[in-house]
């Protein structure tokens, strides 16, 4: 299956993630304007330039700290199932809040596209978004679309294609934390790396361990087994 790629859609509730999913895949998944209505991972295909993009609609969540099972499902998919590209859908009219999730995704995985939806509504409200500056600051492509009016789809599909073929390389910006946290990360990151290797971002796992994320701990245990690494 050298020509098939998995593309995950992440985003806050009510950002039009499912609308985008439906519009791209032609699937008729029901879309509603409220939290919690994407109940399972819907999948659908898009053909583009001889390639098959298998789109996965993750549940809409505000963060990926795995507070609820919904967040856990989305988080686990991005981290452990390793989609070829993760598209984070943001609401152009409330970007400041929406960027939180995008920044969290950038910590977890490399190939990310920031997809700013509802751009038509934002323009009406006088919100001008400079995607070049944002691309520059974030180190990954930022694309403006309107899923309802099917605007910006060629650009989005083209960018996905260029990432999977390696024509674009993502250099996601890393969050830096206050010095005390950075020091703590430095202390355990090498040990985490010994354990998870290149399978997961050691920096991110370290941060989660410091935060006391037991659900992640259990998940790693399950997936990697009780592998003991010699000290």
């Amino acid at each position, binding site marked *: 299956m050298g020509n098939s790629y998995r593309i995950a859609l992440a985003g806050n*509730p*009510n950002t039009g993630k499912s609308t985008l999913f439906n519009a791209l895949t032609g699937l008729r998944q*029901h*879309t*509603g*304007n*409220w*939290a*919690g*209505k994407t*109940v*399972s991972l819907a999948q659908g295909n898009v053909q583009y330039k001889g390639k098959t993009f298998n789109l996965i609609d993750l549940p809409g969540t*505000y963060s990926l*700290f795995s*507070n*609820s099972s*919904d967040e856990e*499902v989305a988080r686990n998919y991005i981290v452990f199932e390793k989609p070829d590209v993760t598209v984070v859908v943001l609401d152009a*009219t409330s*970007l*400041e809040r929406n*960027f*939180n999730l995008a*920044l*969290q995704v950038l910590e977890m995985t490399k190939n990310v596209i920031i997809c700013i939806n509802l751009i038509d509504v934002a323009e009406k*409200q*006088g*919100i*001008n*978004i*400079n*995607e070049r*500056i944002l691309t520059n600051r*974030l180190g990954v492509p930022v694309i403006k679309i309107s899923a*309802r009016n099917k605007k910006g789809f060629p650009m989005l599909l083209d960018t996905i294609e260029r990432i999977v073929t390696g024509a674009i390389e993502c250099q996601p910006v890393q*969050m*830096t*934390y*206050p010095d*005390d946290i950075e020091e*703590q990360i430095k202390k*355990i990151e090498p*040990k985490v790396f*010994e*354990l998870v290797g290149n399978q997961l971002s050691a920096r991110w796992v*370290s*941060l989660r*361990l*410091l*935060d*006391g994320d*037991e659900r992640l*701990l259990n998940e*790693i*245990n399950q997936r*990697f087994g*009780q*592998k003991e*690494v010699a*000290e």
Partner: protein
Amino acid sequence: MSIQQLYMEAQQLSSAKLRDDIVQQLYERSHRLCSEGIKYTKSKRDTRTEKLDAIFTSPIFGFPIMLTMLGVLFYLTIAGANIPSSMLAEFFGSMEKYLTAFFNFLNTPEWVHGVLVLGLYRGTTWVISVMLPPMAIFFPTFALLENYGYLPRVAFNMDRLFKRVGAHGKQSLTMAMGFGCNAAAVISTRIIESPRERMLAILTNNFVPCNGRWGTLIVLASLFMAANFTGGLKSLVTTGVIVGIVMFGIIVTFFVSWVLSKTALKGIPTHYTLELPPYRKPKIFDTVVRSSLTKSWSVLMRAVKVAAPAAILTWVFANIFIGDTSILMYAVEFLDPFGKLLGLDGYIMMAFILGLPANEIVLPILLMGYLSTGSLTEVDSLVDLKQIFLDHGWTWLTALNMMLFSLLHYPCGTTLLNIYKETKSKKWTFLAFLIPTVIAILVPLSITQTVRFFGWM
């Protein structure tokens, strides 16, 4: 070094305010990104959403508007479905005569005609004529309300009530999902963070009638509850009864949540922030076509798929005799005393038991049970339908009890399976079966005994 050891080590390094620091850092970064990459040219903000919310979530108008919306939704469904329903029933009824004539012409054995026409054909066409028109109206209308953004406002209005009974405000969202399908709603409880409150939402979800039960509720309400009224008034009374039934389900939800949060699931409800998304005009045509075609169609197909084999099975059981009693009658007679106690009968109990896989088929199975007992009535219209019930001793009390039993009884097989998958606990799955069943028995039992005691019936 194992991951557990690393975790312990990390915990020793970490401080209590680490999560706050992380989140604050995320917010600062987001803020900086926005101030660099976004310019605001208009100072005027769109205040439409705020203005609408002032009405829809107002402490005074919020609840009356909610009830009215619910009422209008059901009224449209009931009044609008009447005529197409009886037209379909008439059409299928007249087709049956030709089918029978055709089978006579072919000189097929009596049992072939029995299985195919009296069992299969009647069962499935009945499902179609009774269920298709209400669904074709209900789903699109509900979907429009949903897509416009009204449902989160319902959650907002209900939040305080849920808090008061010790449950989570988001439970009203999963309840709204339950109006469509309880099985899907059980999965949607994933949005609730606290396991305790999530369990409450799972255990009480089936007190919201799903689309498999709308058919039963609407038909029984319009046949028996508004019998003395005609025209528009009839639909209005039927609507009143349905709204009442739904409200009763919600009250039971609150009651059960309250009892559980004081006993098996003790705890204080957690706080949460509910985002009220802006009202967005849905693509009306898309929504209507999508929900009426795909949703109505898929529910109908599911009903037909399960009803068809059930129809054949019921007919076969009704026609295989041991001694001079059919297998069906053995089961019915066995269940009858218990059913009578609840103001129901053996046929109804059997229909609910056989209807475990899907609520859609309870009423068709019941009808097939009634029809299979020899007196072959021709069902040409909904009036004939009522006659069949009346011939088997139905009164308004029977209809009311059956509606209540349908509202309150155990979740369907698919829902139970999902509950098991989500809770991974046999104990809680069993409780999800037991609690509604006990309530579904107690409520009709006490109503029936009260009515009989006072001699109203």
